[in-house]
């Protein structure tokens, strides 16, 4: 099993004490699996994604990626796992504004020490970015920026892609197109995908759908 989540709990401090956000989450994701994580706003979808990605730490539970417990790791070790094994696609794209498209795509791969120029070009071609490589993010449309973010996540050949509402900022037609491209590439690289989405239509394109309600998997 690529990802094994067991008994994960997470609370945030509220005005009147701790507010539980995730209660005893158990889930597994296999290699090449595509999973949609759905639920209402505030149900804990993004928090779960952040815990899996090592962006935040759980209060309790195990999060094993390829046998390694991310939850037990320190900051540097989690950063190393993120860099090497996980690709993250944010809703707000989070590109580096001062780097051009080519450098943005190559960035995580360079951090992980697995940069391959041919791979970068192949991804750019596949996502229709071949003509945009020397442009800066501010000169791209939202759809183009999200394509760059997807290419960046895939260029480092991660085992797991985490996507937090990757089409949330895009219109419906662009969203469908971007998602199709992402699914196609994820399938081609053999990575697993966990995607947070509000859209049942997008969720239906995944192998499985996990629904979160009040911090628990329904």
């Amino acid at each position: 099993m690529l990802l094994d989540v067991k008994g994960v709990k997470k609370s945030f401090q509220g005005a009147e004490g701790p507010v539980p956000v995730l209660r005893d989450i158990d889930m597994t994701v296999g290699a090449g699996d595509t999973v949609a994580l759905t639920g209402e706003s505030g149900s804990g979808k993004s928090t779960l994604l952040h815990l899996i990605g090592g962006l935040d730490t759980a209060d309790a539970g195990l999060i094993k990626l390829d046998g390694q417990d991310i939850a037990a790791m320190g900051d540097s070790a989690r950063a190393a796992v993120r860099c090497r094994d996980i690709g993250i696609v944010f809703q707000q794209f989070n590109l580096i504004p001062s780097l051009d498209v080519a450098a943005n795509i190559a960035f995580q791969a360079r951090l992980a020490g697995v940069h391959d120029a041919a791979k970068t070009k192949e991804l750019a071609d596949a996502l229709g970015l071949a003509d945009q490589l020397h442009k800066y993010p501010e000169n791209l449309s939202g759809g183009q920026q999200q394509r760059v973010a997807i290419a960046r996540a895939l260029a480092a050949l991660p085992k797991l892609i985490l996507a937090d509402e990757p089409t949330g900022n895009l219109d419906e037609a662009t969203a469908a197109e971007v998602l199709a491209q992402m699914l196609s590439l994820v399938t081609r690289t053999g990575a697993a995908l966990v995607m947070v989405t509000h859209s049942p239509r997008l969720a239906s394109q995944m192998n499985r759908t996990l629904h979160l309600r009040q911090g628990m998997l329904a």
Partner: protein
Amino acid sequence: MTGAGLSALWSYWRRNPLQLFTLIAGLALATALWTGVQAVNAEARASYDAAAATLGEGQYDQLLPKAGEEIAQETFIALRRAGWIVGPVTEGQVGPNGAIRLVGIDPLTAPGGLGPVGGGGGMGLTEFLEAPAVFADAATAARLEGLVDAPIVVEPTIAPNTAITDIFVAQRLLNAQGRLSRLIMASEQPLGRAPLAQVAPDLVRRTAQGGADVGRLTDSFHLNLTAFGLLSFAVGIFIVHGAIGLAFEQRRGMVRTLRALGMPLGRLITLLAVELGVLALIGGTIGVGLGYVVAASLLPDVAATLKGLYGAQVSGTLVLRPSWWLSGLAISLLGTAVAATGALMSVARMPLLASARPRAWATTRGTLRKVQMSVSLGLLALSGILALSAEGLIMGFGVLACLLIGAALALPGVLGGVLALVQSRATGVTAQWFWADTRQQLPGLSLALMALLLAMAANIGVSTMVSSFRLTFTGFLDQRLASELYVSTESAEQGAALERFAASRAREVLPLLSVEAALADMPAALYGARIGATYRENWGLLGEAPQVWDRVAAGDALLVNEQLARRAGLWVGDDLSIAADLTLPIAGVFGDYGNPIGQAIVAEDVFTRLHPEVRATRFGLRTDDPTALRDALTQDFGLAPQAITDQAQIKAFSLAVFERTFTVTAALNVLTLSVAGFAMFMSLLTLAGMRLPQLAPAWALGLTRRKLGQLELMRAVVLAALTALLALPLGLALAWVLLAVVNVEAFGWRLPMYVFPRDYAVLGLFALVAAVLAAAWPARRLARTPPSDLLKVFANER
């Protein structure tokens, strides 16, 4: 990973060259002014040290004649026979106006070798003895050509305007065969040697003071320069702080992304520190280069000032000394570290999932503002307490630091309060929007305004101090240089003859009698004065007892200078012992500006009784017809014309020295103000790029772009004017601290403070001009912003 991280961080600067320029320019300017001043000081100190090494000043005790200027060769021989290990020195002036000091030494008896000969210098003893040459640095050697009939050898370690040769060569060149100027004592002397009073009663021993005498004299001047350098550096660091703060805020998103993509926090912080270190070195290197230019342009004036004020010879050319350019780079790194610490800590503490939106760099949070105001009030209170209670020079600078930092921190709060008051009274929608918008801009401009406040306060403070000094010094010169003519004679016998000759021709003949003495256990000078109308009518006293002049003239009391009074804790009415069997009450304290040592004045009779061996060779002559008296002295008495100096010459010379001092101060004033103007310009330019979201709604509601540009210009002028107004009391407070605390602690005298409203008004005008210049381009850019850019604000595409 490191390469990728560095390239991402560097890409920010590549895309934001203006910010990069601001940062490097801030660092370069801060370093330039600091290193410029340090270079000048280092050059001067190197010259003092070279002089000390050459002449044995500061390192060894010396034997000097009690009266007159010569020691007979027989006295030297008698001392050597009595076991005293002393080396003879003959010195004199050569060249036009005696511009070059020729020093003759005997390297065989000179203790430890002197200067370049026999010691650590570049000249071997054999070489020195074999070649009857004159040694000097390149510039002096060039001027010696044709003046001396001996070979001239360039020796760079010799002090400027000084030439060294064998004592016999010097005596020949100076036409002083068999005469010595002073004797230098070896540190180790045999026990049981005959006492000095027995072997050479006409000589007095002057103990070594552990450093170059002239260095001590000029400390005041260098202290002022250093203070200026530090202030300029502080102003520059404000620019750096602003640039780094803005850059870090704008890179919050990048930092979050880098961490999310797998860069460990520790590595990221290290890379940011390395990046800043590299920028600091670049800025520092440029700054050191600029500092060299600043120093090279200031040095001739500084050298002239030091020579005029203290007789200190300072090389007029600059040498690249590792000590100051390394310290320049170090201070650039240190300044960057100080400016960046807060920003780096904020990155280190920033949660990975924190908002990437720039956290309102331009809007300080209310709590932070309150903390800043509290710290400011605390520092100002501490400054007041220290000023009234603390003692010592370090405390004096503590007062200055607390005052300046406290006032700078208070500035945003005070300006905010003033703007809120004006806003509440504004009528008309545009005016209300203008004042509200100005308040909103205040945090973004506060660092630049603080820099302007410090620069202006420094200008007002230092100008007030220097101008007060000039005014006091001019009055002091009028008092002290009352005699119309000053005459030097070659011997006591000629002096006595002159006194007889002048008695019937001059209104008053005032012999100038003095000996070195230890008063109140401190090195000092004892003067004998012929108390007459001149003293009674011209000398103003800082403190006096009734019938002060009558009592001094009768030998019942004495006068002391302010330095001696303050250092020894004495004042009018206290007793001072001037000899083993003579203690007199102090009847008056006189100001003695520029003199580093204590002084006491007794009546001529008392002085002669105590020191019968001292006879006057210099005189002040009072006359209603200086020209006639001068003619009589030269034609009838046979005195050489150069032995007579008139009062006007001395005053003109002294005031000319001050004008040179002013040139240096004025240049530093202009530089500091320019740096502050630059800080304002860069802040306005940077803010202009962030202003569109605030200005677009006003534009959409009917304000034209031209009007918006005009309002931007007006905003800068209003803020600069308010800052200038606040700088006035701060600058006056600074001047008071310099005059009443620092000066007293450093030099022993307190100067009266004068105010110069016209100068302050001109300075305020300069500040407004600087603000208009700083705001002109950003305002013009704003007025020409394409409507499409303004519309983007509403399209949420920015």
